[in-house]
């Protein structure tokens, strides 16, 4: 085939096209690799979470099952020796850790929770403050014991000593990351089947999602069942604790109406940049807030998102329903502005 000759009209169009192409490509900047850090993971490596927590432009990576061998996998920072006392045999009381990653610099700092492998349940940043919540027999941050009795715990596991297990505690500490110091602590005895399912630190308060299958005490208040006397009626609460008075400012029933703790629970508790608290709740039954049903559907494996004002008023809720797929919801991300990304498979 003979190639056709260009006429004047086509030449003009060609020049116009080349100008458009030049403009569109001149703004493109070639992609370059800024940093690349590799962390090798062996069979006895720490267990790292598959997410980073952002705070003031830095990113934090949490890991459990940590001992001093963590230095073998981090070349950029040197982590001080971590106390991992023996629990008898080859077992050791391992730690957990928050590794700080600074964009443009790499791994820049860390906070160790000795003996915290099984005990650190939640953490939440607010500026320079880090709230850590533990429900173990002993709770420590870096080289400071916050609560609990380490000797009694070790003696209990020592075959040569007839000791008793110390009381399990619910404790929190607020750690100032600039001062590298604990600035506030609190602890109270374990209650039967009680658990804190999520925390979010605000300026002078902590938002907590708590749960038990019975009435329970929380900072001096009795938190009752959804239907008093009906053990299958759920007892999940969202509460706001005033850090100065150590009293609950308010508490609200949240989640579904079924026996809580079996299939349902709060999976995420965070604050948006406007001070609203957002709770993602895995619901098995009708979802409700403060005793008011939000829908009339008996969902299974559903998710309900709650947005609650600092005063405890429900601003909005969303419900995601995947009744036939137990693994429909794979991941979700709540952004600073309160927007939500939901990922899943069906």
């Amino acid at each position, binding site marked *: 085939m003979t190639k056709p000759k260009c006429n004047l009209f086509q030449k003009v169009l060609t020049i116009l096209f080349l100008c458009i192409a030049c403009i569109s490509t001149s703004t493109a900047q070639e992609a370059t690799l800024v940093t690349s850090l590799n962390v090798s993971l062996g069979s006895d490596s720490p267990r790292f979470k598959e997410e*980073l927590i952002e705070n003031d432009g830095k990113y934090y990576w949490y890991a459990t099952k940590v001992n001093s061998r963590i230095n073998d996998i981090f070349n950029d920072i040197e982590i001080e020796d971590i106390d991992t006392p023996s629990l008898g045999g080859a077992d050791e009381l391992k730690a957990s850790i928050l590794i700080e990653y600074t964009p443009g610099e790499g791994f820049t700092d860390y906070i160790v929770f000795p003996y915290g492998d099984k005990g650190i349940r939640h953490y939440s940043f607010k500026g320079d403050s880090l709230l850590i919540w533990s429900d173990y027999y002993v709770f420590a941050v870096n080289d400071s014991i916050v609560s609990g009795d380490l000797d009694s715990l070790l003696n209990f596991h020592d075959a040569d000593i007839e000791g008793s297990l110390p009381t399990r505690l619910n404790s929190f500490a607020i750690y100032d990351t600039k001062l590298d110091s604990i600035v506030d602590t609190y602890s109270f005895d374990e209650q039967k089947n009680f658990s804190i399912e999520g925390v979010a630190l605000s300026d002078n308060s902590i938002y907590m999602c708590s749960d038990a299958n019975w009435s329970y005490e929380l900072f001096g208040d009795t938190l009752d069942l959804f239907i008093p006397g009906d053990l299958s009626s759920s007892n999940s609460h969202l509460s706001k604790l005033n850090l100065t008075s150590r009293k609950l400012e308010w508490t609200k029933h949240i989640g579904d109406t079924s026996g809580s703790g079996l299939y349902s629970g709060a999976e995420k508790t965070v604050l948006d940049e406007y001070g609203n608290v957002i709770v993602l709740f895995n619901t098995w039954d009708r979802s409700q807030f403060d005793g008011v049903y939000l829908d009339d559907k008996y969902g299974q494996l559903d998710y309900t998102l709650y947005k609650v004002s600092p005063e405890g008023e429900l601003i909005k809720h969303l419900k995601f329903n995947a009744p036939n797929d137990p693994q429909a919801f794979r991941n979700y991300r709540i952004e600073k502005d309160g927007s939500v990304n939901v990922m899943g498979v*069906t």
Partner: protein
Amino acid sequence: MWVAQDSFYIGSPPVASLAIRVDKDWNFQWHKSYAGSSVVSAMNSTSGTESLVFIPILDSLILSDTVIYHTYEELYPQFVPSAILKFDKEGSRVGEPFMFGDRGLFWEAITLDKDKYLFMVKFKSESGQFEFLGESYGFGISQYVSFIEVEGNLFDIISSLSLATNENDLQIYPSPAIHGSRIIVEFPISIVDDNTNLLIYDNNGLLEVAQRISKGQDKIVIQTEHLSKGIKRITLINENHKTTKSILIF
């Protein structure tokens, strides 16, 4: 099937994977569904105005907006990369899907700033070796996690895989072309192998044509009446070559 609120139905067979975007006032902005026999999961991270959605791909990827990106078993029999897709706040895809590695599993893809990204990727021993922006990955360690920071227009690259390119390999005429007419794309017979494809993308990166090229073929005739008007990027690609040239259809 998923139902988000009462009025927002998403997902029906054969949808395999979903990404849903809800704005700060909790209105549903957009959702994307990804089909393909082995799309296993998706994650997402947003910086207010844009979203990154990433998908480990094992063979193919089909989007709900009927865009078929690639069928990797055909294009790259030895590679099964992951993909990161970038969307604006309206849910329109920005640039090209960014292909990365071989069975890498993204844990995080964060937009740090304009054209600045932080990726946290987990690689396993079967990830194979590959090169990404001059750095080698996939070195004999059973498992590792990489923190990778990238600057620049990442989503202008169709693939991170190292392929020979030469724009002069493609001769397209007439150029510009009138919508409805035929265009002819010529290429050296020597670069065509058994797994060569011709792809035509619009200016937003949406694939409009995917045509298999047979070995021994040195040109193809494209009917433009089925294409939209505007700038098209025509790519000839196989596992050894990738050649792209643009044309205006008016």
